[in-house]
């Protein structure tokens, strides 16, 4: 039961985002990078399948040097192989990134390919399904439960007010939702073992891709802005709950027009 897990690096969730000088990217100074939270559920599921059924868990990341750290952490948690495609992913759109990942995945033995349901950086929720289309694989997205055996995967897809139980033939793409499992922390033993695993470092050229294949974007960022500062809010004293309640209802009725 071999899995590939695609890992995205994103700014730590505590980060106060600042806009960079060109007005199109964030200012990366001092930013601490982490594995995107949804990818942790993806990785954990792949590791659990390996523990039950054997096989390899290959983590895959496309991006600059710092991606190595995210791959090393993933190895420490239990991934068995890692591939880093070193390149400037920052200018690529989702389809460009998907093309790179698809090209790499074709070279790694796999039954399932896992993604987090979205990377909490750009929050596009696009790359996983795009890779599925490029590879011609079935996809099951926003998965909260999964079982895989004998060429078939059965997963619960979370939709509005329900869960669909979906069966698909493997190989298949799975995007993980929070609640799929409880991701483990890396153990000291895992950290030590991970140091011995070589992260394969590749370039786009190794997969027959040129920069123009990936950077020939369909979606370009025109500008990046912080949310506008909110003004005009007022505070009232809630010491008298009945009076406060009346004032809130007045606001809701007259200004929000929601009553």
């Amino acid at each position, binding site marked *: 039961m071999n899995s590939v897990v695609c890992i995205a690096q994103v700014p730590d*969730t505590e980060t106060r985002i600042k806009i960079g000088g060109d007005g199109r990217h964030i200012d990366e100074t001092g930013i601490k990078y982490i594995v995107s939270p949804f990818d942790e559920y993806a990785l954990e599921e792949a590791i659990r399948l390996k523990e039950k059924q054997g096989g390899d868990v290959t983590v895959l990341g496309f991006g600059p040097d710092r991606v190595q750290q995210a791959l090393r952490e993933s190895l420490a948690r239990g991934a068995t192989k890692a591939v880093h495609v070193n390149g400037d992913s920052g200018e690529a759109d989702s389809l460009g990134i998907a093309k790179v990942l698809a090209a790499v995945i074709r070279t790694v033995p796999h039954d399932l390919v896992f993604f987090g349901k979205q990377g909490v950086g750009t929050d596009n929720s696009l790359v996983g399904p795009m890779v599925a289309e490029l590879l011609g694989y079935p996809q099951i997205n926003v998965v909260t439960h999964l079982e895989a055996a004998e060429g078939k995967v059965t997963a619960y897809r979370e939709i509005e007010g329900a869960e669909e139980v979906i069966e698909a033939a493997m190989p298949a793409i799975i995007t993980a939702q929070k609640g799929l499992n409880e991701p483990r922390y890396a153990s000291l033993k895992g950290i030590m073992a991970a140091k011995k695993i070589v992260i394969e470092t590749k370039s786009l050229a190794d997969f027959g891709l040129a920069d123009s294949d990936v950077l020939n974007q369909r979606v370009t960022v025109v500008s990046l802005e912080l949310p506008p500062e909110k003004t005009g809010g007022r*505070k009232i004293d809630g010491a008298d709950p009945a009076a406060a309640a009346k004032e809130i209802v007045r606001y809701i009725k007259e200004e929000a027009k*929601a009553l």
Partner: protein
Amino acid sequence: MPAVLVFCEVQDNKLKKASREALSIGRKLAEGAGVDLVAFATDRAAAGDAGRYGAKRLYVAGTGSYNTETYTAAMQAAIERASASVVLLGGTSNGRDLAPRLAARLNAGVASDVDRLEWTGGKLRARRPVYSGKAFATVEIIGTPAIATTRINAFPAEESGGAAAEIVEIEAPLDSKTKVVETKVAESGELSIAEADIIVSGGRGLKEGANFSLIRDLAHAIGGAVGASRATVDAGWIDHQHQVGQTGRVVSPNLYIAAGVSGAIQHLAGMSTSKHIVAINKDPEAPIFRIADLGVVGDLFTIVPALTEEVKKAKAH
């Protein structure tokens, strides 16, 4: 002739809110570019509503209920038949599942979860949240078709009063490698935060999970969905489907009421585009007051039940 094509979903014999919202902004884009607004559905019942929201034609494929591969094939056929230059999908689970698949198939650009859209300089320009809503990116999509999924509640649904859309039947292959074996409907039947006009959220100030009953009572009285901060979800007080903010959802309801939510950066980012924000917190320095339109400094354990009573009174009139 190029057109704006909107993916529509039918529920209880009417178009879903997300579809009506997408048609409404689609109509504005179509009028601006001087092209037709058209729609796609797998149910002919959509024709009346689609027309009311401005669609001239409804492309119908007999594809049955949602399946990624069959719907991708059917939408591809509709896009070709309509010569669509812009494709919009409401940001429902199915819309979000389908859009990237379609984009990769057509080598097209796609922007997800947009809350602003315009056709300018011959291109589709969209605004979307990034870093869980801590920033907003304005993007441009090059080439055709340009695809976008709209955030629910971001665009108002506005009828234009047109006649029923003309039905155009299309054929598409029905093979698929996935099968929906069963649909498990959630017992509570609660309103989803993604679609609600009103959200009432609880935070750590509730002190324990059982106190979410205060939030539920208010949400029920006012007709809203129950939201939650990450801290309460991680503490196991409520299911992650209610989580607003980072690793939860970015929401844009008309009214957001936060009780006992301090307003950590990860939470604020997820609800800052709400149109009207009321915050109840006993800490006058709580960060949530920075973005609240109406901040109430006080004890939620007395204020929230009092508010529930006042809401019930107001509704009774």
